[in-house]
């Protein structure tokens, strides 16, 4: 089993509610807290999910793209074998990559090894932290079954994010990746991320007025 999140880049409107709900849930959740020592003085705190805003394409075919970036829960997670204490590990039963804060020495080697820069250093506790795929929610049997999914998936107002098992060929996430050419970031670095994105459909190509008039003349 490989639990993962698929994000449809056509639907994401960059509202950052996944970024905020991640922070909110994990500041009060069982696996947290996300450190936030001086949130008003220093907004550059720890975020396990950051929305990157990019301007894409060439004029006049430009647009703005939002890319939510959290742990990719990689199949061949390079952050795991480099860890000297075994604090970083990948769960065999569901593929979620986690950190045991009690055995982490804070050497930050896993931060170098992660190609995506999603691990962040907690200066207060001296350990590295990152997205847990909200494992505390997934395994919380006191929650109703429909709520046992990541906070960022639940809070997305446009339903851009889908949660499920990528190893199950019949799951919704597998279907989306297969049918919509889901892709992972930086594939050349060999981490085999399980988190996939659904590519944006191209914007219609602009047509020059003369071309249009010519075409109209030919036809009518």
């Amino acid at each position, binding site marked *: 089993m490989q639990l993962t999140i698929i994000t449809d880049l056509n639907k994401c409107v960059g509202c950052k509610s996944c970024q905020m709900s991640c922070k909110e849930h994990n500041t009060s959740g069982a696996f947290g807290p996300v450190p936030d020592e001086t949130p008003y003085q220093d907004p*550059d*705190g720890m975020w396990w999910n950051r929305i990157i*805003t*990019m301007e894409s394409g060439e004029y006049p075919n430009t647009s703005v793209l939002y890319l939510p970036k959290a742990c990719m829960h990689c199949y061949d997670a390079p952050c795991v*074998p480099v860890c000297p204490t075994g604090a970083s590990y990948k769960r065999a039963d569901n593929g979620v990559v986690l950190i045991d804060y*009690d055995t982490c020495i804070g050497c*930050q080697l896993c931060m170098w090894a*992660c190609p995506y820069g999603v691990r962040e250093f907690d200066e207060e506790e001296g350990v590295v932290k990152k997205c847990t795929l909200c494992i505390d929610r997934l395994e919380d049997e006191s929650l109703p079954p429909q709520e046992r999914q990541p906070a960022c998936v639940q809070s997305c107002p446009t339903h851009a994010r889908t949660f499920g098992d990528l190893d199950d060929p019949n799951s919704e996430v597998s279907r989306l990746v297969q049918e919509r050419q889901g892709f992972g970031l930086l594939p050349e670095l*060999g981490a085999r991320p399980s988190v996939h994105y659904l590519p944006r459909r191209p914007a219609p190509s*602009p047509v020059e007025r003369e071309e249009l008039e010519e075409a109209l003349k030919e036809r009518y």
Partner: protein
Amino acid sequence: MRPAPQLLVLTVGQGIAAGLAVALAALWSMGVLTHREAVWLVLLALLTAAIGGVASFFHMHHMAAARYILRRLKSSWLSREALTTGLFGGSLAILAAWSLFGSTASWAYVWWLWVTAAAGLLAMWVTAMLYATIPAVLSWHTPVTVISLLSLGLLSGASWTGLVLPLGDHVFRVFSVALMVFMLFVLGIKALHWRHFGESHGRLRAETGTGLPFAPYRLQDTGTTKPPYRMQTQVWPAIPVPVRNLFYGLIVLFVGVGPLLCLLLARLTGVEVLSVIFPGLVSVGVVLERWLFFADATHSSRVFFVDEPRHPSRVAAAAKKRAPVSQA
């Protein structure tokens, strides 16, 4: 990559100690060292190794978990580094005790000298492999990283023997030509390394894509972070080109040109103070080199940070030919 002073001191200290251990084993085996000189070389190696070792402790930010550090010897180069650096320190400590209080005339002493030298080389190699085997740090992911760290360690250790053996001494006279050739080799390796660093700077850009279709991209917002990226130590604001070039110049001066002149002058004049200037220059050069090694390294996540080299937006440029129909 944010340069960590602890790692700088660890790698430089370990290199000097291992270089000294190798030089000591070689010189003692050739019978050109007195007992007093050998003792001083061992103590210098022990001191530099201890400074590096103490610095490495400060790189652990959660000491309570330090007892687990050897758990992943099978896969983690950091576990292996802790083991091999510890073994090197231990063998140096035994060598120091032996040199001070034991008999140095036996074959067993020579044998232990070489064991210590091998332990030093092994520790340096493992440390270098730790850096070279991380694909995400594009600048380090090359065998040149290993050769560079090893050769600079050997050079700095060899230069520190100048503190015990005067450069005008007949031993240095014999070895100075070999040392000069080795310095030129080190400079060549550094040039190759910097070339790889330069290629890494250009390899990954938001502009060229991150796996996303419809490149090129221009980053507008990295999602609530700003230089110097306090929580994300794998990146560091890009070093301006003039500063980088200044570092290149200083390193060539301190590791190459300056020490070469020292050796030449020592051969010609025999002035004693050059024996102190020589290791001093090399050490400063190695510290500068190591700072740049960390600070200038390109991590693949740099594509998601806004301070990559600026390219002017083409949105503002007037379109000559193609324009949307609605504007025509």
